[in-house]
């Protein structure tokens, strides 16, 4: 799939170091954020002279167990996922090692959609990878801390949003449009479970005190499992055979690919042994899976708490076995981004079961978004606010943002609310730089640096030349004095690197459009045979360079060209048997005073859209620097 940096080593030290640095810096900012919020909260409360007086009675309803399971369970899962996103290879590797393979068997429209996301990630790998870390960690913390009220509902909605983003772009819709969909291998996608859980958490708390909620949840879950059993049993989908014509069947190949990942040897041996078992007894394994899914699904659909409890235990046993033996715990080896679908699925099933027998509402209790231990000032009755809390229903936003009202609201907030605000800050800490980076069409120069290293500074007069441009006009280096020059050497009949370098220059030209009268983009022909200007024009047309006003492609007789190649250290060598001309790839930055400023290694590497854009950014930055010197 193009545009996904598939040619860059995922553990490239340049990118990994930048990613770690970004995480460290953002981590420090996150810590600082929590410290500042805590200090502000304590200070405001002290300044206002507020402290709890006597024992407080929490008048609110206790959190429904089903809701707590979802909140805590998915909060922890989001944090785990965030930590997994911090793996060093994730910045470069996620598009090529996670997104691309996941989409491979999906229809082309899914691949196009996912490719777009992968390319966007690839353009700004550091910011996007760091954002994925902080957004997921932030959602996790938020879910863990906001145990009730609107804060939890908002956290649920954010979880829905990000879960769907991950499900669509990271999991290619959980593979539901691809052949081979199976509950055993993770369908319909772990992230969809996160989104469903988020949606449930966004429901008003009162709904959790109705047995109907549990009934709907368990019935839906039951029907879903029965559907998955039907899919698993459907003939012709390759699940009944452990081996087809000497090739591994669908389930066998999944298990074997998991066994091949790097992981503790004991686990690898276990998974590998199970793979062999599936290969030999595919029919029996699938029969067990179909029966288990069908019967557990039917039991859930019945909605009888006792039957559901037994079904839940069976599902837990079956699911955990699948999690270890088929899904390989999801995150071991390779670049695992989550523990796959089984754990979130079990959390949803458990919540459904718990919701079947809801806790009755306590007399006089209320669901509130106000803090649990709201302090009272001396003389105030317990449980009432001592601060001027502005009623959102009756005041406008200007009113609410007044310093006095803000400080009042802060003083009235619980520790959990303040910490939740910190979690929101953590999410923004990742999301804002990512959004800012994605707003730019130009890729980060980090990719170019990872391919060719940093540039070499120079400070010597640029060797002069007088050649003919693509329009047949004589052009000398001296005639370009006063302009910053980006100089490279291109073969007009090259089939690989030169067209990519030309695209890098073209994109740099577009980035420098505001300086087109001050910057000249110059290429010198490196091919002694195809040196006629007609080849320069054909190349320019091929690479859409004709619209760049400051593009010069220069040529001359081989006797004119050779000394220039030599002075710039460019080797041109005829290779045998249909190979293109051999030459080194380099670019030079010449300052406005005619001095060589930099030599950039210019092997275009994998030549993806992201690396081309990255090189363009690098040379455009170099040109801007040269203009300032």
């Amino acid at each position: 799939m193009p545009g996904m940096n598939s040619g860059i080593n995922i553990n490239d030290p340049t990118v990994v170091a930048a990613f770690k640095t970004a995480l460290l810096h953002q981590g420090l900012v996150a810590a600082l954020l929590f410290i500042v919020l805590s200090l502000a909260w304590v200070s405001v409360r002290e300044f206002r002279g507020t402290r709890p007086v006597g024992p407080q009675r929490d008048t609110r309803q206790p959190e429904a167990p089903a809701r707590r399971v979802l909140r805590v369970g998915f909060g922890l899962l989001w944090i785990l996922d965030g930590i997994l996103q911090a793996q060093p290879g994730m910045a470069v590797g996620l598009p090529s090692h996670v997104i691309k393979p996941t989409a491979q068997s999906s229809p082309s429209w899914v691949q196009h959609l996912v490719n777009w996301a992968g390319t966007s990630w690839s353009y700004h790998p550091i910011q996007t990878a760091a954002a994925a870390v902080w957004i997921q960690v932030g959602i996790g913390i938020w879910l863990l801390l906001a145990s009730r009220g609107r804060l939890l509902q908002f956290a649920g909605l954010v979880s829905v949003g990000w879960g769907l983003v991950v499900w669509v772009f990271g999991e290619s819709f959980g593979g539901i449009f691809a052949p081979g969909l199976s509950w055993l291998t993770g369908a319909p996608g772990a992230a969809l479970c996160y989104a469903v859980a988020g949606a449930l958490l966004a429901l008003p708390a009162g709904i959790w005190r109705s047995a109907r909620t549990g009934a709907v949840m368990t019935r839906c879950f039951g029907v879903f499992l029965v559907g998955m059993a039907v899919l698993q049993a459907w003939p012709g989908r390759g699940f009944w055979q452990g081996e087809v014509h000497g090739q591994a069947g669908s389930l066998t190949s999944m298990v074997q690919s998991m066994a091949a990942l790097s992981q503790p040897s004991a686990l690898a041996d276990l998974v590998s042994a199970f793979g062999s078992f599936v290969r030999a007894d595919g029919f029996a394994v699938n029969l067990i899976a179909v029966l288990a899914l069908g019967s557990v699904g039917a039991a859930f659909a019945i909605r009888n708490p006792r039957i559901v409890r037994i079904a839940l235990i069976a599902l837990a046993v079956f699911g955990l076995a699948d999690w270890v033996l088929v899904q390989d715990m999801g995150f071991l080896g390779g670049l695992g981004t989550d523990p796959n679908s089984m754990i979130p699925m079990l959390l949803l099933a458990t919540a459904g079961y718990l919701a079947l027998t809801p806790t009755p509402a306590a007399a006089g209790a209320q669901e509130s978004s106000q803090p649990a231990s709201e302090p009272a000032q001396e003389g105030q009755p317990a449980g009432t606010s001592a601060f001027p809390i502005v009623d959102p229903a009756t005041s406008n936003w200007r009113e609410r943002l007044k310093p006095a009202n803000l400080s009042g609201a802060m003083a009235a907030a619980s520790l959990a609310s303040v910490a939740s605000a910190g979690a929101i800050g953590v999410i923004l800490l990742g999301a804002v730089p990512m959004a800012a980076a994605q707003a730019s069409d130009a890729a980060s120069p980090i990719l170019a640096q990872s391919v060719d290293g940093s540039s070499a500074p120079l400070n010597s007069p640029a060797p002069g030349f007088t050649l003919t441009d693509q329009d047949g006009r004589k052009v000398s280096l001296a005639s370009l004095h006063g302009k910053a020059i980006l100089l490279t050497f291109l073969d007009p009949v090259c089939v690989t690197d030169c067209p990519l370098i030309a695209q890098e220059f073209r994109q740099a030209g577009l980035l420098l459009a505001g300086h087109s009268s001050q910057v000249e983009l110059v290429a010198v022909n490196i091919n002694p045979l195809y040196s006629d200007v007609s080849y320069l024009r054909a190349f320019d047309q091929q690479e859409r360079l004709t619209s760049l006003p400051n593009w010069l492609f220069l040529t001359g007789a081989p006797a004119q060209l050779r000394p220039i190649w030599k002075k710039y250290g460019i080797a041109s060598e005829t290779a045998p048997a249909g190979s293109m001309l051999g030459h080194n790839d380099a670019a030079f930055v010449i300052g406005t005073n005619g001095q060589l400023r930099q030599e950039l290694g210019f092997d275009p590497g994998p030549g993806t859209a992201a690396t081309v854009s990255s090189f363009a950014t690098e040379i455009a930055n170099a040109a801007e620097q040269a203009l300032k010197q």
Partner: protein
Amino acid sequence: MRLPGKIGMLTLGALVLCAGCGSTIAPSPVASSRAALPPAMSLAESAATSQATWAVLSMGAKSGANEFWQLFLLTANSQQWKLDTPPDVATNGAPALAGLAGPGLVAGVRPSLYLSYSPVSRTSDAGKTWSAGPPAAGLASVPDALAATPGGSQMLALSKSGRVASAAATSSEWRGLVTERSLAASAAGRACGLTALTAVAYATAATPLVAGDCGKPGVAGIFAGSGSSWRGAGPTLPAALSGTEVRVLRLVASSSGTVTLLQTGTGSAARLVAAWRADSGRWTLSPAFRLAGSDVRSAAFGDAGAAAVLLTNGRGATIPGPSGAWRLTPTVPAAPSATLALPASGQVDALTAAGGTLTVWQLDQAGAAWTRAQVVKVPIVYGSSG
């Protein structure tokens, strides 16, 4: 069941159905409107003049950045084929050949990888030196996408987009002559039901020829240009061959006039006919050669109108000229790329290429067996294009 439950059930049901549909969608059969035509030929080929025989074969990998097409040359005064691929350009795209008088050749490299146009180079001294010709628009993937007058003063190119253009050797640009669309819209094109252009050649320096597939049965789509007008100029096929569509497989100039290879019908009904055009415009047809379920894999032409084809079943067939008859050869040793060659000496060679090795086989006098005559190791630089 109450409403939320129903909604949930419906949603999950839809999800399951979608998943099921997604997993069981089978590719719909693609209707082929061109079922009556044979498959496209390989771009491996050979052409000969009185002083040189040239052959092009695919070597290296089967396709992609490590497939390098190689040009080989056998001069009249030598018994040994030698590697003569034009320098300083990657030949991941197959070179299209246009033989010149004597040891001369024009070669245009078809587009490949990031190269979308066709560099053109020429030699007049059997590959000792090469010079660049005007760059052409990306040449079509048919063997006769490039043609030249015997002296090389004029060139003709058929591009991927179906545009035919000409250029003088001294010019730096190509001039459009006709397009597939405009030719199809002309009276001659309508009479044939032209659907695609497949070859270009020069009958004389003033008469460019363009060939194409005709939708109308029995019509050989060869057109002669005169100024801006084009007229049907193909041979008239005998009634026995006029019931099926005709594909112009090859159209080349030789010292004894223009030669074409036509295929009529497909499968067991497929026949191959060679035709020679005299300067008067009159065609002489060969006997129809029964292809017996095979297709033509590659073709070769000798200097004086001789032609040879290599079939997909491994057999070859040769015909010495307008007055001759088709003669089958033994099976050519299997190889990923192969062509027959007809040097001026009158011998029949088979060139087979696999990886970096070219093997030359010679047909014995009795035409009964192939004898290995030469092995050429080609120093392919793998990875140089990717």
